[in-house]
């Protein structure tokens, strides 16, 4: 189980590959039969406005512990082997990856469901705040899209 807050651009697929190597080193190869990966990246539009850049603020300490709690809850609810959560903060450009959630399990149902659970819980509880730069200036995003 790992949680990383990244201050600069990250490459989600290498994060997954690296973490999976570590997982295999810890539990051995052939233990997981399913892995799900969710990647959220920055759009260049939101609520009918062009968005040229974004700043993501967080609460150092609380953000990491909120993400760890969410990963632990997923582990209690489903038989999953491991989770990886990576979230970007700071100045972000369109197309940059913002969030990565990866889950490994023996069978697919747990990996799918736990991944969705982590992502939805992160959206509603993890202390991050987005400020979008639009043609008419900066604006704080007031609520996340429903799904």
């Amino acid at each position, binding site marked *: 189980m790992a949680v990383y807050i990244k201050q600069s651009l990250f490459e989600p697929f290498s994060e997954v590959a690296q973490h999976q190597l570590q997982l295999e080193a810890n539990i051995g190869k052939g233990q997981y039969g399913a892995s799900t990966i969710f990647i959220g990246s920055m759009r260049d539009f939101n609520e009918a406005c062009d968005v040229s850049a974004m700043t993501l603020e967080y609460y150092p300490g609380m953000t990491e512990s909120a993400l760890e709690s969410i990963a632990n809850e997923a582990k209690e609810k489903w038989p999953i082997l491991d989770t990886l959560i990576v*979230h970007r903060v700071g100045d972000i450009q369109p197309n940059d990856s913002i969030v990565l959630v990866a889950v490994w399990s023996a069978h697919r149902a747990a990996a799918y469901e736990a991944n969705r659970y982590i992502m939805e819980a992160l959206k509603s509880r993890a*202390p991050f705040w987005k400020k979008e730069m639009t043609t008419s200036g900066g604006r704080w995003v007031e*609520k996340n899209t429903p799904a």
Partner: protein
Amino acid sequence: MSITVKFFAGLREELNIDEAQLDFVTGLTALQVWQKVTGQPTLPTKTLIAVNQEYASEDITVNENDEVAFFPPVTGG
């Protein structure tokens, strides 16, 4: 013997306060912390509160050396 008070995101910008120290008084609630630091009687709608980095309600009693944070709804992911 003080309480650390933090503000984030839009709330931090509106109030123009990042962090403040407040003298501790026994029986102080999170709402009273808000009132003393901001001078405003009520919390803006939907404001979230965390005490020692755990979500809390405005009537929670705070202790000395606690960290109390106020912030708008979260929008990560």
